[in-house]
């Protein structure tokens, strides 16, 4: 029998159902690896398997899940990667985490992330950077870097993260795993420590497409605690497509051309996957997304604007850090926030406050929301002719720690090909598509709202044809 931690989550669930392994045995195998990890992927690891509550009979069979730090988990540290929430143990659990537990996937640990999910390298965490298991001198991507590194390195069978502008897809690409951002509203945001509420969405980070479908199946649905959550039309089917016959793929020149600055190795891989898709029966044609190159600018107005409002709650009064203010309230506020927030969070709060200020509101925030309308319209038009839009997930493979920290704008360009889908609220998946100079490359497919089952099917057919082997990262 192969190592327990080499199994995909679905395969491990099969073994449990066949009574070949016990849930507690699987939990302990991962718990021990997670606790001993030297990637800084976790901020907290469970100290024992949960009591046997019959989860082996539940749909997810007791296969434990790693959860991004920003999901509130009752009695367990939930810090969103920030010193301002160091040691905070919330009194309730996020809906998505509760749904997974109910379906038989107990909490294995909390994973490191960029502070308040702001970042593309995990270097903005208040608890230190996460290392990429493929090359420890490199970043795992971000902001769900801990979740991605944990799954890639075999420190978790699967994980959940959140994606605001690429924070599931980009780290999945850089770590050689699958990452899915669902349609906005598909999963409840209740209990997710908010970054940008009109963009934040929870989703799976997994070894393969089937595992992603399984997590999605058990996390979607309307939640009375989140008025933006939606009743998902239909069920999430387990993917089974063997080819791409009749599937029309659109290649957006605006994103895949020179402006995105795509590395040659990534571009070469992208072209190879396109050829592979054609071999599987897909038709591939260029498509227009005229406003997509402006998505990054619109995003860096909308997301900071929403963040500046959401982060106003961290004021040293109800929970988290407080720094003494010489008996003055305003001094206490400003000292607490100055000590508790890291530089990227401060940068975005200032940018967002500026974009929302009187006299600049129309010129910045208002304009950005109009651009957002145009970006969504472009996708809508494109989906009249195409089933999916395909791009590389990230312009480059995992980069060296520290190589982009001096220039925020260079860091933001990580998200050039993932942000347009976020602004349009549509689902997109990144699958590992090969290696470039020994480092994983991701291939992104995006579909219309609520097309997740079809999207997973197409990704599954490609996954089988690519035959990516991620075992090297598990050591």
């Amino acid at each position, binding site marked *: 029998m192969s190592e327990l931690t080499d199994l995909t989550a679905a395969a491990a669930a099969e073994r449990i159902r066949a009574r070949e392994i016990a849930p507690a045995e699987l939990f302990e195998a991962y718990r021990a690896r997670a606790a001993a990890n030297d990637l800084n992927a976790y901020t907290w690891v469970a100290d024992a398997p949960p009591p046997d509550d019959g989860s082996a009979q539940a749909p997810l069979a007791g296969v434990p899940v790693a959860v991004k730090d920003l999901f509130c988990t009752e009695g367990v540290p939930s810090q969103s990667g920030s010193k301002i929430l160091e040691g905070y143990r919330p009194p309730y659990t996020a809906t998505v985490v509760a749904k997974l537990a109910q379906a038989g996937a107990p909490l294995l640990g909390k994973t490191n992330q960029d502070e308040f999910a702001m970042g593309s390298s995990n270097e903005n965490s208040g608890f230190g950077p996460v290392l990429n298991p493929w090359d420890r001198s490199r970043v795992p991507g971000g902001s769900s870097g801990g979740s991605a590194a944990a799954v890639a390195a075999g420190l978790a069978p699967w994980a959940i993260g959140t994606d605001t502008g690429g924070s599931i897809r980009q780290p999945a690409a850089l770590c050689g795993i699958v990452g899915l951002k669902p349609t906005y509203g598909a999963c409840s945001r209740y209990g997710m420590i908010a970054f940008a509420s009109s963009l934040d969405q929870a989703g799976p980070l997994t070894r393969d497409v089937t595992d992603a479908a399984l997590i999605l199946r058990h996390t979607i649905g309307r939640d009375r605690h989140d008025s933006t959550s939606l009743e998902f039309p239909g069920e999430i089917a387990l993917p089974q497509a063997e080819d791409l016959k009749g599937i029309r793929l659109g290649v957006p020149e605006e994103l895949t051309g020179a402006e995105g600055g795509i590395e040659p190795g990534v571009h070469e891989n992208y072209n190879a996957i396109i050829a592979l898709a054609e071999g599987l029966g897909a038709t591939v044609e260029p498509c227009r997304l005229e406003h997509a190159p402006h998505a990054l*600018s619109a995003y860096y107005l909308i997301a900071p604007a929403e963040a500046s409002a959401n982060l106003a709650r961290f004021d040293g009064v109800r929970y988290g850090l407080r720094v003494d203010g010489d008996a003055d309230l305003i001094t206490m506020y400003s000292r607490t926030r100055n000590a508790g927030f890291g530089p990227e969070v401060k940068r975005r709060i200032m940018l967002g406050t500026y974009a929302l200020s009187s006299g600049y509101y129309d010129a910045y925030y208002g304009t950005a929301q109009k651009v957002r309308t145009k970006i969504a319209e472009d996708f809508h038009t494109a989906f009249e002719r195409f089933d999916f839009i395909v791009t590389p997930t990230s312009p480059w493979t995992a980069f060296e720690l520290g190589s982009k920290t001096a220039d925020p704008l260079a860091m933001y360009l990580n998200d050039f090909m993932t942000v347009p889908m976020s602004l349009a609220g549509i689902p997109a998946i990144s699958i590992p598509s090969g290696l470039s100079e020994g480092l994983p490359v991701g291939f992104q497919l995006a579909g219309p709202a609520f097309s997740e089952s079809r999207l997973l099917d197409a990704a599954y057919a490609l996954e089988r044809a690519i035959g990516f082997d991620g075992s090297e990262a598990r050591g």
Partner: protein
Amino acid sequence: MATELSHVLDHIEKIRELDLEGVPPTSHVIDVVNALRADEPEPSLPREVILAAAPERINDGFGVPTPGAA
């Protein structure tokens, strides 16, 4: 940080070159009309549980320094 922010703003400024005359701003990205739910009371978290996380507690409330003391 001021230089970095100016650099970012210069990049963002590019969207102001677009012709967006008559384009409605996005209010919600997925087409939904209204989000209503039944007005059913349910228990809140107990006061003790909430106050347990407070940096400073005074009786049954959150303690804060006096506004405008300085």
